[in-house]
């Protein structure tokens, strides 16, 4: 009963390391002494503080209001007191800091009064507003505001349960334990986007998740069934392969449509949400719970690997300590080993995009062997999911031939890391690509700045020129004016003089008054 699936090119099959964390149920973590909630959770969607220091807040109470149409709200992850509003480091490769609200939990964990919204009766705008006001963002790691995606009108809704990165099992556990919520959330999203077809793609290395989700689809809650209407929802098993969990890759596998890197998925009538996002939508609408926590896979060099329902804002160090991070841990990765990054600072809090933390040791993640010259073996070409020739990009980037890198479509590269993973010469290819693209961006910026400066200069000189021209025109005009005036005056004077003369003949004394009159006029 499986639909036909498609096989995109490239991809790799790294050791999955899933069972380390996938075999224990999702656990709760104790509330840390303080929570740090950044107002910005990802690259898009910011919020404005609506609390002040000293305020008492309830769990789920909005503490940051969505800023503008793209913004997403943030909520207190537990009840307590706002103790500080200030800049704190974020979980980001650059270690940059962001304005954050600090909450000291009161240990009560008191929820606000839930206000569910019935998707079958509420109107569409109301539902989308609620998604925004519940602070829902893409939970696969991209953190894109979900209400913006839910607004699109499409035919096919893809729910991403592929979870292809090694070590990561949060979605797997979520599907096993809370498939009904995922299915309801997916049905609501289908309702909002008008999708007639909902495809839930799950990799074949998660048989329990597949079974649970299939059961949930078969025994869908009545409200979900109503949302779905005439639409169909199908669970599709896809082969395990990295990076099938990347949305365009998954769309290709499920629908056979290969979306060019530069195109939006909606152009093809498709939209894609992660299973965890669908789950969050269900909680927000059907239960009235805004996003206050997320499931984080903590694995690798820890004593108790597993999946943890973590309050947003919990310092990563606290979470790791709770999981028993071992002393020989060298560094901690956020995200999977293929695309994740090394955390520069463990004081950073868990945010909505924090899907996985991997404690790394020398044994689990040995440093890559030293880089050798490229032998053009073509392994990287075979592995690239978007049909690039990574070694050509490498030669171009290395030679700082950025036009060459662009010619070889550097900007189609999604930095999935497949090429570097297979390269027998152990070349950190993705580093070269990141370097080249940042150089090109910097160069383009410079170019833009230079263009602007030139434009400003040209504008200024043309303005000066125009002003000069206007000025001389004015001067000329005035000169002619003066000339004509003088001519007119002269005529007047002549006439007057004549009259005077005439008068002088009668009254000569008046002639002396004529000269001062003339002087005044010039």
């Amino acid at each position, binding site marked *: 009963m499986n639909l036909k699936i498609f096989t995109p090119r490239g991809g*790799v099959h*790294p*050791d999955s390391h899933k069972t380390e964390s996938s075999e224990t149920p999702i656990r709760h973590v104790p509330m840390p002494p303080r929570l740090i909630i950044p107002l910005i959770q990802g690259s898009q969607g910011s919020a404005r503080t609506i609390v002040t220091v000293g305020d008492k807040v309830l769990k789920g109470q909005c503490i940051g209001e969505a800023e503008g149409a793209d913004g997403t709200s943030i909520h207190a992850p537990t009840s307590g007191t706002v103790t500080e509003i200030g800049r704190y480091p974020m979980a980001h490769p650059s270690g940059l800091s962001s304005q954050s609200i600090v909450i000291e939990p009161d240990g009560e964990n008191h929820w606000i009064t839930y206000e569910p919204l019935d998707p079958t009766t509420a109107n569409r705008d109301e539902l989308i507003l609620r998604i925004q006001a519940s602070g829902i963002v893409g939970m696969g790691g991209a953190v894109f505001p979900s209400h913006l995606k839910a607004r699109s009108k499409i035919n096919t809704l893809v729910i991403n349960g592929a979870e292809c990165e*090694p070590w990561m099992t949060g979605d797997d556990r979520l599907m096993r334990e809370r498939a009904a919520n995922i299915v309801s959330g997916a049905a609501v999203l289908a309702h909002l986007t008008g999708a007639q077809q909902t495809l839930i793609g799950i990799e074949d290395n998660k048989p329990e998740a597949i079974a649970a989700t299939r059961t949930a689809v078969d025994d869908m809650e009545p409200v979900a069934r109503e949302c779905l209407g005439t639409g169909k929802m199908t669970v599709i098993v896809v082969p395990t392969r990295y990076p099938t969990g990347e949305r365009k890759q998954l769309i290709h596998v499920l629908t*056979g*449509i*290969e*979306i*060019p*890197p530069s*195109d939006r998925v909606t152009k093809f009538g498709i939209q894609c949400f992660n299973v965890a996002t669908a789950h969050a939508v269900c909680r927000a609408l059907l239960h009235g719970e805004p996003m206050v926590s997320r499931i984080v896979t903590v694995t690798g060099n820890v004593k108790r690997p597993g999946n943890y329902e973590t309050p947003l804002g919990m310092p990563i160090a606290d979470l790791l300590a709770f999981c028993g991070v071992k002393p020989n841990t060298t*560094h901690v*990765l956020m*995200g999977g*080993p*293929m*695309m*994740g*990054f*090394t955390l520069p600072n463990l004081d950073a809090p868990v945010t909505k995009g924090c899907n996985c933390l991997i404690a*790394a040791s020398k044994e689990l*993640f040995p*440093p*890559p*062997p*030293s880089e*050798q*010259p*490229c*032998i*053009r*073996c*073509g*392994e990287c*070409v*075979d592995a690239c*999911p*978007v*049909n*690039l*020739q990574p*070694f*050509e990009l490498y030669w171009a980037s290395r030679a700082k031939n950025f036009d060459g890198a662009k010619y070889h*479509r550097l900007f*189609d590269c999604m*930095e999935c*890391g497949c090429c*570097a*993973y*297979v*390269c*027998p*010469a*152990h070349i*950190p290819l*993705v*580093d070269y690509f*990141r370097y080249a693209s940042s150089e090109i961006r910097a160069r383009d910026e410079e170019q833009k700045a230079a263009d602007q400066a030139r434009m400003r200069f040209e504008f200024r000189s043309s303005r000066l020129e125009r002003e000069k021209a206007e000025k001389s025109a004015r001067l000329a005009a005035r000169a002619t004016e003066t000339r004509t005036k003088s001519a007119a005056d002269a005529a007047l004077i002549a006439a007057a003089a004549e009259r005077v003369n005439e008068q002088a003949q009668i009254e000569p004394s008046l002639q002396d008054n004529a000269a001062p009159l003339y002087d005044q006029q010039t």
Partner: protein
Amino acid sequence: MTSPHIRQPASVQRVMTTVLVALLPGIAAYVWQFGAGILVNLVIATVSALAAEALVLRLRKRPLWVTLSDGSAIVTAWLVALILPSIAPWWLTVAGVLVAIIGAKHLYGGIGQNPFNPAMAAYCAMIVAYPALMSQWPSVDGVDFATQLHLILGGSRGIDGITGATALDTMRTGLHNLGNVQDILTSNTFGYAGGRGWEWIAAGYVVGGVFLLARRIIPWSLPLGFIVGMGVMASVSYLIAPESFPSPLFHFASGGTMLAAFFIVTDPVTCASSPLGKFIFALGVGIITWVIRAFGVYPDGIAFAVLLMNICVPFINRATPLAPAGQRKDRP
């Protein structure tokens, strides 16, 4: 540390070792048919290649061990030894290796950057410089190792009975003297399909080549292109004038055809990039090889054909870029 944080257990060393292993069946057949002389030349080539590589790396102030241990110099050395006559004097082998390693590889910036196939460059240099020595091959009947060793170590030459002409040479000379292909083939230089003895070596190379294909070390597009190129030319000419043109089978089993198909045109550094480009490259080598064999003055045209196509690689690459994702034909 940056992503990806994990690597597949693969290395250049492993790739090169696999290639060396794949050469073993051919070498075994060589020893079986023509004696152990080839082993001596393989050793000479290996030692001189490593020495030359070390010297150049030292001069270029590059890390010695990483590159020396990657095995690429040994692959080049073995190929050079296998394409030179196995009874060539030691200094000819050394000279060939030096041309390959220093001239063709390092003068262009080292591995990965050389436009010309090093082994083929060595062959061309040697055949131009020492045409006589390059045409003395061991005959199947003279497999006496002591004599071979004597020849390799620089003994006097011209001993009849031990050296013989190759199948391609005999065919050329025969045709030149207005012979007919079928009559020429009755000479005892020939075996079942090609040169006597050489057919077995070719079969050994095929075994190794299939192994490389199975291990995905080489893509199928290269050997296929080469065999198609040569096969089409040979078949058409053979069908038109069988008395003047030998069959495709003869071409496949003679000279270095199979070595070239699986180990020479497949050099990743000097062939084209895309699968289509690779096919075109190898097709060109196959066609040009046949043309040189049929009408040229050199016994085997593979080396010249490869170098000619090496020159064309930048143009082939320009003409055959990979399609961007989402714009390929396999889209529904």
